[in-house]
Every structure is written in structure tokens, then in C-alpha cells.
């Protein structure tokens, strides 16, 4: 099994991938996609995650306000810690490739996209 495949199967990567899918597909947040695409260093990756989560959070709050009783998907704190650890261990480029790969994947049946 390749390192990339291992990362792709990691729940934290899956979670961020799903969030990126929502960001790009629903929120039109292309800036985050471009940033994930070009980020290379660890410090840049942390900054990218920060901006990405801030945008995602703003969109999630808007969605929850407009659809009372519904909750928007967001990666949790554990996922964040794990993704940072993975980036330190495997390199930013590999982790970003795995996250973007998730964003290319069809949502699973019955899964709510937002």
C-alpha cells in the first residue's frame, strides 16, 4: 500500500477532504482550493488551514442560521491535530494531495453534503 493511499484512508484526511468538497462545491470557496494546491511549507499549511476553517465556519454559521435545526459539517479539533501531525510526518504536499483527492470523490449514498 502506498503512503498516499494510507493517508487517503485516514479519517482526519477524509474529514478535511469532505470539508474541502463542501467548500468548493457548495460555498464556492475556490481560494482554499488554490491555497491547498500551492502550499509547500508547514507554516504555510497551518496558515492555510486557519483561513480554510475560518471561511468554512462562516459559511456553516450562515447555513445553520438559514436552516434552523440543521447542522453543517466541520472537521473537529481531533481531526485538526491529526492533520497537522500527518503533515509533519509525511510532508505537506502529500497530505494536501490526499485532501484534494477526497474533494474529487462522489459523496457517499445518504451522506448529507452540508
Amino acid at each position, binding site marked *: 500500500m502506498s503512503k498516499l*493511499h494510507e493517508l487517503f484512508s485516514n479519517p482526519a484526511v477524509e474529514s478535511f477532504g469532505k470539508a474541502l468538497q463542501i467548500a468548493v462545491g457548495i460555498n464556492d470557496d475556490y481560494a482554499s482550493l488554490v491555497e491547498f494546491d500551492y502550499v509547500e511549507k508547514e507554516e504555510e499549511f497551518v496558515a492555510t488551514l486557519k483561513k480554510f476553517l475560518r471561511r468554512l465556519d462562516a459559511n456553516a454559521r450562515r447555513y445553520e442560521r438559514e436552516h434552523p435545526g440543521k447542522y453543517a459539517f466541520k472537521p473537529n479539533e481531533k481531526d485538526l491535530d491529526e492533520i497537522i501531525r500527518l503533515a509533519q510526518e509525511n510532508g505537506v504536499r502529500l497530505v494536501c494531495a490526499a485532501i484534494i483527492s477526497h474533494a*474529487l470523490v*462522489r459523496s457517499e449514498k445518504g451522506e448529507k453534503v452540508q
Partner: protein
Amino acid sequence: METHRFIINKTSFDMFDVFRAYGLAYLISGFEKNVVTNIFDNDYAFIIESHGKLPTKLDPKLFEETGSSWSVIFRTFKARKDLKAPHPRKDAENVVTQEYNHLLDLHKKSDFIPQIGKKVKDGRTLYQTMDVSAAKGYREEKRDVYHEGSQIEVDKYSWATAVIGAAWSSVWPQNLMRKDVAFLICLVPNPKRALLISHRDVQNRLDKRLCGISANTALIHYALKLVQLVREKSDEVEYDSIIFNVMQKTGQQPKPGGGGKYGLDFLEKLARTNAGLYALENIDRHLLPTNPRVKGIQQDVALALTDFLLRPNLENLRTFESFYIRGQITKKLYPWEKGQLEEILNHVEIA
């Protein structure tokens, strides 16, 4: 049952060698099913093994037009009114008809090696459609003035054998013969081990409309189709690479555009699992358009995907992903099935 072994010693001109191997196999078995013929690649030579009584004369169907590439393999031949020599097709027919038994006997000897050079006694011109690198790669020193170099010649027996192989085993994608496609590409799979009749079956069943955005997209498209088909016949046919020749169309004769060998390891690994096979099918049907005029994101994705399939590394994957996601955003491309993409990622080379 009689068993005969023939040897095609390699010359390092890949396409010329493989055409000779197929050519000899066709010369032995023709289109009758009396002789079972196998081709094996033994690194230094191709071994042709036949079971059954050898024919004493050539199968005339080998010179029929239907199903062959006779019409294209002498594309670079320029007929002139004052030319005394016969057309190369007729010439090849004369050689193999008149000296059929001698030709087979020659290839039974392990020391028969083709004579290749600038001037070969009773030699014939090696056309670039039969191996660009062989025909145009060997040139003499050039100074001051423009000079295209002289032709290379090979002995008539090796030449005629290669001509038969080129006529019956080379693949010239049909949809790329259009005038608005700038290049010509010729493809042939290298037989690691192939039962000739199964090889023919694979070639006949293969859809020869390929993605003509570039020569590389055509090569990859052919490889994808081939790997899918061969999977069903893996007991009888195994190819390890595809040898290709590219020529650039000009106002006159086509000019050499390069050639090489593409290993099938990566695609074969993918085809071993169901998810991988579906991924190949998906790429074949949706991501490599056969219309060479396609533009925009579909063109970008096809080119990026081709680069990735040629060299499956992280850099090329990231470029492909980057284009693909943009195609998804504009609703021109569908999302991937998770299992299929997962299988592709499993084989990405990480430096």
C-alpha cells in the same frame, strides 16, 4: 505433432524487431488454423514456436487489403514515373513468395542477424513507418548545408518479414487519419508471450478510435483499451509494453516525430482489481475524448491525465487533480467513485 522453433534476433530497433517477430509468425501460420503459433520475448531474441505441419508456400491472404495496414505502411514512398523498381509492397510479395522456404530456414538458425547499414547487398530501404529511430536515427555528419541524411537499408529477408508484421500487427488509429490531425501514430504491443490467433482476436476487437489531442494521449488511450481486453485472455496473451512511432504530417511526406516504448506495468497493476478496472473504463470512456478538436478543461484534463499515466508520480497526480477539480466545479466532469480513485492512489510513486 511437429514442433518448430524460429528465432528473431533483436537488433535494438524495437519496432523493427517486433514487426519481424509478428511477420514471421504470420508467414508461418497464415490465416489458416492448421499451425498453432506462439511468440515469446526472450530479451535477446523473439522465439516463434509453431505446432503443426509447416506450410510449403505462403498464404496469399497475407497480401489482401481487408483488415491490414497495407495502405499506410508505405506512406513515405514516393512513386515516380521513371522508377524501375517495383512498389515496395509488390517487392515484399515477390521476396516472400519466391523465397518462402529459404526465409523460414534462415530464421531457424540462431546466428541469422539482420544486416543493417547505409549500403547492404540486395538490401531494401527501411521505411520510417517501420521504425522511425532506425530509419532516421542513424545519420552521417552534416556541415554547413541542410541535408536530411541518407536512408538506411536492411537485407531483403528481414525487410520483407518486417513488412508483413507491419501490415498485420501495426495499429494506425482510424480517427487520427483526419486531415486536421497534425501527426500520425503507429502502435504495436510487444508480445512477452502471445498465441498469434489470440493476438489477432485482441487486435480485431480493439476499438481503434483514440484520443487524438496529442500523440501521448493516443498512446495512453490505446494502452488502456489493450490492458482491459488482454485481461480476459491473460492465459494466451501477455504484452509488457507498447512500441510507438510518431510522424509529423507536412505538405509532403510525413517527417519523423519520435518514437519509444511505454511499459504497461502501472496499467496492468490497476487492471488486477475490479475497482482499478472500473477506473480504467471510466478514463477510457469519459476522460480521453476521441474528437481531436476538443478544447478547454476536457483537453487540459486529458493531457494532465496522460502525463500522470505515463509517469504516475505525485507531481503529475497533483496537476491532474488540480485540473479535474476545476472541471467538477464547472460541472463538466463527474466526481470519482471513491474506490476507483483509491486504487489509483495506491500505485502513485512517492519520491
